[in-house]
């Protein structure tokens, strides 16, 4: 049996400060392949820190983090960078698309550092953009697109390298309700296709779409009953 995509045990992250902040404490988290998980918590709860730990943008102070069964806490910086590029797809609240570069180029960027041959890059980027419904926007400058379209470009960029885990940080934070709904619908479709997703949000409505929900408050994680209502 293949190992779970994410396996965190006893993970903590302390910022030495001053003041000393224990942003995440003793987190045990497993995300199985094909699972759609949401992590919910108010701002300052430690969910951003958890996102960075999950996305290999930060190292845990203690505990073990296995990604696809590999202990990534002990990897060198170079190896972690490569694993990040290959296995994690990021979707940010602020999209982080490069202005003055076409939609297609923005998506291709996710493969530039992974040595995917150029022709293959373009073909895969086009296919992925078509998959998110932007096949007609390939040559557009992102600054001319609507917020929802921009987030779809960002999702295409996250998907194009075929990551093990799609990590979304407040993906609907900058979107109106219509665009937010269409992005969440897209997540549902991707989940149905077998993609593993982790969505970090403070929005109950967003987190309710997930298959499984966990809550983080003051750096401590707890499960939320899937049918439960958040008080």
């Amino acid at each position, binding site marked *: 049996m293949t190992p779970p995509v994410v396996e965190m045990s006893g993970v903590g992250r302390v910022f030495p400060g001053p003041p000393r902040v224990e942003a995440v404490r003793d987190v045990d988290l497993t995300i199985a392949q094909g699972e759609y998980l949401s992590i919910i918590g108010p701002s300052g709860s430690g969910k951003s820190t958890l996102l960075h730990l999950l996305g290999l943008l930060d190292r845990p102070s203690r505990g073990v983090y296995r990604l696809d069964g590999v202990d990534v806490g002990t990897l060198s910086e170079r190896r972690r960078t490569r694993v990040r590029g290959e296995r994690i797809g990021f979707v940010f609240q602020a999209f982080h698309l490069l202005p003055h570069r076409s939609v297609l180029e923005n998506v291709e960027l996710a493969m530039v550092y992974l040595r*995917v041959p150029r022709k293959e890059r373009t073909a895969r980027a086009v296919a992925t953009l078509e998959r998110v419904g932007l096949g007609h926007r390939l040559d557009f400058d992102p600054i001319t697109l609507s917020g929802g379209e921009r987030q779809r470009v960002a999702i295409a960029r996250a998907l194009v390298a075929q990551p093990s885990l799609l990590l979304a940080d407040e993906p609907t934070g900058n979107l109106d309700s219509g665009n937010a709904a269409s992005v969440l619908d897209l997540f549902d479709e991707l989940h149905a296709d077998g993609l593993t997703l982790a969505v970090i949000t403070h929005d109950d409505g967003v987190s309710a779409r997930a298959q499984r929900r966990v809550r983080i408050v003051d750096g401590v994680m707890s499960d939320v009953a899937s049918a439960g209502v958040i008080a």
Partner: protein
Amino acid sequence: MRRPGRQRLTRRGRRMTLRDLLGEALAGVAARPSRLALTTLGTVLGIAALVATIGLGQTAAGQISDRFDAVAATRVTVEPGETDGPDGQVALTQLPWDAPERLERLAGVASAGTFATVDVGGDPVRGVPYGTQQQTVPVAAASPGLFEALGARLSGGRVFDEGHDARGDAVVVLGRYAADRLGINRVDSQPSIFIGDRAFTVIGILDGVDYRSELQDSVIMPMTTASELYGLEAPEVLEVRTELGAAQLIGRQAPIAVDPNNPDLLDVTAPPRPGSLRDNVSADVNGLFLALGGLALLVGGLGIANVTLLSVLERVSEIGLRRAVGAGRSHVAGQFLVESGIVGFLGGLIGSTVGVLATVGVSVVRDWTPLLDIRLALAAPLLGGAIGLVAGAYPAWRASAVEPITALRSG
């Protein structure tokens, strides 16, 4: 369940290709055209100043040495070669008496004449007979053509001619300082000087010569006179004035004309090729210009460094994103380094063009022949690129130090 048709990525190594690096850097540069124009401005000005000043320096020096050449580059001298014999230096051959006539047959010779010092056997040279006023004035002999060959100018009288020489007349021409020392300042009264007890009529006094200024100290008599009275054996040196541009040619032909049997035994001094003279002058002229161009380039480089640093701060979120999609620190540093290198190269390219155009433009206005080393025009863009790389080093390091966490949190 995994997505169907899913493949693992190829893992042939993590280095991006040079083409990708260049592509990303070019896109980064091209994304902000107005800023690019402003950033390159410093390098454009610096390189343009450098190329134009060197070009104009070379052009101007070319014109300067064209004038120089008229005086300096028309002198050829021929002397018998010497070797170390048992009694010190021994001449290997002798110049013939008719060496000037042999030379004047050559095309390109304006005038030629021979010179020798004369040993008068210790006889005193005096301005009046039997006086107490004794001077040690050197005595020299000259063929009539020597005066013209040396560009001699007279303050009074005339120089001796072929007739005086052929007859061995007892006439002399005094150098300016020799005349002073002998107390003779005019020739219209036909004054005489005495060497020992022989009287010589002074027919002329020199005012100046272009070369061989020792003539100004000497009493100069015709060659034949020196030969008959003092046993002069042969001329010591042949002085030739050539037409402009003929000096190197005459330098090669002169020994054969003078001594066809042993041309190798003669020492010929001809002016250096015009180019080498020009280079020396150019070096002096260019020193100042180069310093100014270098200063402009320094300012240009600081400009690139400044703008690239600003660009790094502005593009923090882009850097974070690149790190998130698998770019290492070296990729990020490399990109900013190449970007500033491209900016410098572009500035150098434009500056080089402007500099060449300025050189040609000034030359047209001043009616000069533009001279510019082609290597300079080709090297200038490379210099610009190198300056860009150096200027980008610190911003690139700053970019590589950006933490993706902070970068992605902002904006």
